[in-house]
């Protein structure tokens, strides 16, 4: 197969040319994205293809890069919290928590117990919303249009609930250093209690419509096998690594907040493929519901914000802190270093999606294009989080 004049390469950009340097004779270089239906935003993947087969793939990032880490250098710690809601629109509260948790660790601030419960409840609700979004979008990647509507039907309820304390629906900035901004009111708690059985009643429908469907099973079984060893080399976390059979969950391994008091399981799957990751996320619905249920029962009365919580003019003490939480996509880590100045000296955001996506080049090699899309979706990418 030779290049025909009709398909002659037009001069590409820096990345295409850099990628094309190692291309095989007669292969087709295809840019998936930055505008492509299955890249969930503005991810761009350059793939070298031989017919339908992917020989090589290279994700190109940076289309949504906002340099949050630089912004952290010009804002004080308390002023930086709104940025955290914008890093990952899927699981904004996870990022909220990672940042305020890191600052609390740095300054040694104790959070009131009720606030811890409120954080767990809202964070888990947000995780459910994130998984629902992933579920719908993933099936859209696989060509099923209807599930996303059912998922959004449920997600809408969640967003309505989260809107009560936070006031927003997507980019929350709800946690504060030393607690949360507002307590959950009666109405909110009642609606959460209503939501739990509702969500449970929906899960069998998800199973019937999608999980058991033979077409879906054939699409994701055996696709994108990630060995635990590869997970380790790439630093993958979250459902990706649990889908590879490693029960690694920050909520259990580096427990924070009130998670040690709660009774929940860490779903894993030995399948290591897209199916394994799918199963893990579906199983996490039930676990999150369990956590929320227990928290509602155990939640004590009291303050939700510590007395003398840091104001925007507050200066963080000297030192460094690293705090990680389990986000919907994996380990969200925030590393802070402070020299005692007005702003933090260095803020490093560890995005789970970033590490998970770096696996893609390796996993997609030799698969066919449709599988590459299925793998990309199974990693659960949120581009703003990857690009930060």
């Amino acid at each position, binding site marked *: 197969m030779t290049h025909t004049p009709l398909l002659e390469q037009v001069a590409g950009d820096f990345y295409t040319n850099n990628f094309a340097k190692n291309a095989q004779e007669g292969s087709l270089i295809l840019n998936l994205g930055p505008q492509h239906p299955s890249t969930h935003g503005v991810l761009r993947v350059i793939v070298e293809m031989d017919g339908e087969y992917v020989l090589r793939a290279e994700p190109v990032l940076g289309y949504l890069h906002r340099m949050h880490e630089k912004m952290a250098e010009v804002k004080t710690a308390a002023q930086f919290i*709104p940025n955290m809601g914008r890093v990952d629109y899927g699981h904004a509260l996870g990022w909220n928590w990672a940042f305020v948790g890191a600052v609390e660790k740095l300054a040694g601030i104790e959070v009131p117990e009720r606030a811890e419960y409120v954080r767990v409840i809202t964070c888990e609700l947000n995780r459910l919303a994130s998984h629902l979004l992933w579920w719908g979008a993933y099936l859209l990647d696989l060509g099923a249009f209807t599930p996303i509507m059912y998922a959004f039907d449920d997600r809408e309820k969640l967003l309505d609930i989260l*809107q009560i304390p936070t006031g*927003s*629906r997507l980019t929350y900035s709800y946690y504060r250093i030393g607690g949360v901004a507002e307590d959950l009111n009666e109405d909110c708690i009642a609606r959460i209690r209503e939501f739990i059985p509702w969500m449970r009643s929906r899960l069998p429908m998800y199973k019937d*419509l999608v999980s058991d*469907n*033979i*077409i879906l099973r054939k699409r994701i079984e055996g696709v994108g096998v990630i060995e635990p060893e590869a997970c380790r080399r790439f630093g993958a976390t979250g459902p990706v690594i649990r889908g590879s059979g490693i029960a690694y969950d920050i909520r259990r391994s580096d427990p924070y907040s009130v998670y040690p008091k709660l009774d929940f399981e860490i779903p894993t799957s030995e399948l290591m493929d897209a199916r394994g990751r799918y199963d893990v996320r579906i199983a996490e619905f039930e676990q999150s519901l369990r956590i929320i249920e227990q928290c509602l029962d155990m939640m004590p009365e009291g303050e939700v914000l510590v007395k003398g919580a840091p104001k925007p*003019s507050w200066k963080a003490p000297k030192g460094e802190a690293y705090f990680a939480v389990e986000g919907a996509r994996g380990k969200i880590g925030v590393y802070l270093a402070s020299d005692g100045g007005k702003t933090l000296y260095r803020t490093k955001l560890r995005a789970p999606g970033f590490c998970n996506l770096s696996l893609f080049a390796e996993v997609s090699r030799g698969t066919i294009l449709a599988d590459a899309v299925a793998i990309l979706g199974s990693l659960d990418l949120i581009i703003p989080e990857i690009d930060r």
Partner: protein
Amino acid sequence: MNAIKQACKTVSDLWSLVVGLRVTGKYFLEPQRTVRYPWKALANTDTYKGHLELVGSPKDPFKPRCISCGMCALACPSNCLTVVKRKAPKPTPEEEKALAEAKANGEKPKDKTPKDPEKLIYDYSLCSLCGTCMENCPAGALRFSRNIYMAGYSRNDFLFDLVVKLRECDAGAPAQTAAHAAEKSEA
């Protein structure tokens, strides 16, 4: 034996397709979940926190509680607030006389400048609705409005003076204002 198993599996696999059709068929017949906005009202707008607004003082709902201290502008992560303080009013001759008298007596002159701001310029296009300004306001003079219908044709439509907004909005819905004011004063 193996072949029978295989056949059974194939049948059950194909049956999963029928199950899927049953689910969509069921929902096809069920009522829709869509709210036909804007013909019907949405149920979740009352907990929404929209752009900032000033809280009227308990006595006069058109006069903000704000004391022009500027804490909100200082606290704002995105610098979207600007407080313009009132200039001291030009003293009338009597007042001037009184002032001079007071000075002569060695008393400190009382500041007659009204505390409420001349202007409170708010750039909604920069605001991230984090609520830091409200939390740092010593007078409790700021709150989120529930206005979900904020729309405009240009960036400048989102740059407005909250003091003016307070008057306008109150003029538009006096009854609601009274209710708001009452509610606030109770709080």
